[in-house]
């Protein structure tokens, strides 16, 4: 097994990886920016190296600094977490060429799935349904209009180099499409350094259902069932649960098989997630594949009792998966709430600052993945997620009831958080019945706005 691993990340995921390493007897090296000198992952690691100033570009995205730290600390492997360099194929290649194992998929997996148009082609070849659309780069407005005419409105314009809900625009008619197309190109160039966009049909009231897979270097692939991540605001996930209240065992098996088929077809290695959109008629369409560990991985860990981070490390070390598909279970129901330091009533404005009081919920069936502590100064330079609560129960009802309790118990003072919004969602009758789609949160926010007016 590896003796030393460097964690090229921060916050709660860095802490998560350190925990897995500790349990495997692996020494940990944390890297941090100046803004994170008092961060929990720095304290918990065996060694910690300051790699740059607060700005991500000069620290957590600074490949030379991270590799330099890895060489100085003499580590055998790097875990990139999620975000930052996790889906940077170039970084994965540099690790390998420096004799450092990248704990994640092969660079070619990252590259293929990172190009959303190339990904669609690979998916089609694997006999998985894709949404009607351009299926290729759309070069100009006229081409865009032609695609929309063929597939019908509404349509989504998406960045080829995008993903994670970013770089997307919706258009409902020719006029808005013409405008949105140019804006989308500009935003794509600014955000991803590549203006190329493609177009897909926008489904009505879809559910976002994704399948977790694990693949080793010997071609073994298993799926760990699905997560329903339809509770989103502006394409950013707020709440996830497993299993999806929408899926029958038959549909679960079908979607799981499709995800495995795709992973096998592209020779995927490590943990990954295949995202689908599910329509009201039980048809599912490929959305994208995330070639990294995801924020919401604990939901799957709890109901399958598989430690996904440990599996990533084992796979990276060349070990074969011990897990068989037939032994992957579904033990109860889990739900996760992402807690952000944001003022949800002021358009989710981020709230950096000092956490003056902090007490995480506990008790039966409650897991909290957070790097925050009383006295912690939340820096303003990074994303605003400060923790995740994951609750499990025998049934969906008991899991959601437990989550309501946990949300009530959570004490975070000094900064505003999105806990009140989660309470609102969790007590909504439609949510309680499991009847929601990706428009749910936006609808809820509209109702709230009207109430205040």
């Amino acid at each position, binding site marked *: 097994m590896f003796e030393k691993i460097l964690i090229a990340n921060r916050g709660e995921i860095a802490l998560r990886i350190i925990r897995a390493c500790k349990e495997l007897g692996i020494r940990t090296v944390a890297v*941090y920016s*100046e803004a994170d*000198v*008092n961060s929990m992952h*720095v*304290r918990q690691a065996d060694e*910690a*190296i*300051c*790699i*740059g*100033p607060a700005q991500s570009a000069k*620290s957590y995205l600074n*490949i*030379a*600094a991270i*590799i*330099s*730290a890895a*060489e*100085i600390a003499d580590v055998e492997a790097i875990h990139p977490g999620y975000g930052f360099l996790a889906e940077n194929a170039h970084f994965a290649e540099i690790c390998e060429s*420096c004799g450092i194992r990248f704990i994640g998929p092969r660079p070619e997996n990252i590259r293929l799935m990172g190009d959303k148009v190339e990904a669609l082609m690979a998916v089609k070849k694997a006999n998985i349904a894709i949404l009607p659309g351009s299926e290729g780069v759309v070069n100009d407005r006229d081409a865009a209009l032609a695609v929309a005419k063929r597939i019908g409105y509404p349509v989504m314009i998406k960045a080829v180099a995008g993903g994670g809900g970013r770089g997307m625009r919706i258009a409902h008619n020719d006029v808005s499409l013409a405008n949105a197309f140019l804006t989308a190109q500009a935003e794509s160039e600014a955000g991803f350094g590549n203006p190329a966009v493609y177009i897909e049909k926008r489904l009505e009231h879809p559910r976002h259902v994704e399948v977790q897979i694990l693949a080793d270097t010997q071609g073994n692939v298993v799926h760990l069932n699905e997560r329903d991540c339809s509770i989103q605001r502006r394409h950013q996930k707020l709440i996830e649960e497993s299993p999806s209240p929408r899926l029958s065992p038959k549909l679960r098996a079908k979607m799981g098989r499709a995800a495995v088929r795709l992973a096998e077809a592209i020779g995927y290695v490590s943990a990954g997630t295949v995202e689908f959109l599910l329509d009201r008629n039980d048809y599912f369409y490929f959305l994208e594949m995330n070639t990294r560990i995801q924020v919401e991985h604990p939901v799957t860990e709890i109901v399958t009792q598989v430690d996904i981070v440990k599996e990533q490390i084992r796979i990276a070390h060349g070990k074969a998966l011990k897990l068989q598909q037939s032994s992957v279970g579904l033990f109860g129901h889990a739900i996760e709430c992402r807690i952000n330091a944001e003022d949800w009533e002021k358009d989710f404005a981020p709230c950096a600052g000092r956490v003056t009081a902090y007490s995480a919920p506990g008790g039966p069936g409650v897991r909290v993945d957070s790097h925050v502590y009383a*006295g912690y100064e939340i820096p303003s330079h990074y994303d605003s997620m400060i923790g995740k609560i994951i609750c499990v129960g025998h049934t969906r009802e008991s899991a959601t009831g437990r989550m309501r309790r946990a949300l009530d118990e959570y004490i975070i003072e000094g900064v505003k958080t999105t806990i009140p919004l989660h309470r609102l969602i969790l007590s909504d009758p439609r949510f309680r019945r499991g009847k929601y789609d990706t428009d749910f949160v936006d609808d809820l926010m509209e109702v709230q706005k009207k109430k205040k007016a």
Partner: protein
Amino acid sequence: MNIKEIKDIVALMNENEITEFVIEREGFKLSIRKGQQFEKGPAITQVAVPIAPVASSPPPSAPVTVGAKEAEATFIVSPMIGTFYASASADAPPFVEVGQEVDEETVVCIIEAMKVMNEIKAERKGTILEALVENGEAVEFGKKLFRVSGG
């Protein structure tokens, strides 16, 4: 200095939210630092300041100067993580020597990261008082490399 005086200093620090206090007298140096979040933090180099005897006898109550010693000198800190090299090559002389005058453009060392040799400039006028790292030593971002007097 007796324990009561130290207690008074600590009380003063708390009242005024001072986190670091350094005092030097002939043959004596006291450094108090409070308010660290954790006991273990990044490896911030503590400068071993040699205690220079004071020319005239000090007044009974020494002036309270917070971090006085460090305020006189400044430091060239590493702008990146890497390996510190004092000279351009193994047999070349070091870029700077103690006592040498430097200005903004003077190259004081090389920091190597991923096989790229980065020349580090002084970026201020002054005199090199002390080299704080050794040739071949790994340095993290922000590590103090040289103590430099004000120009």
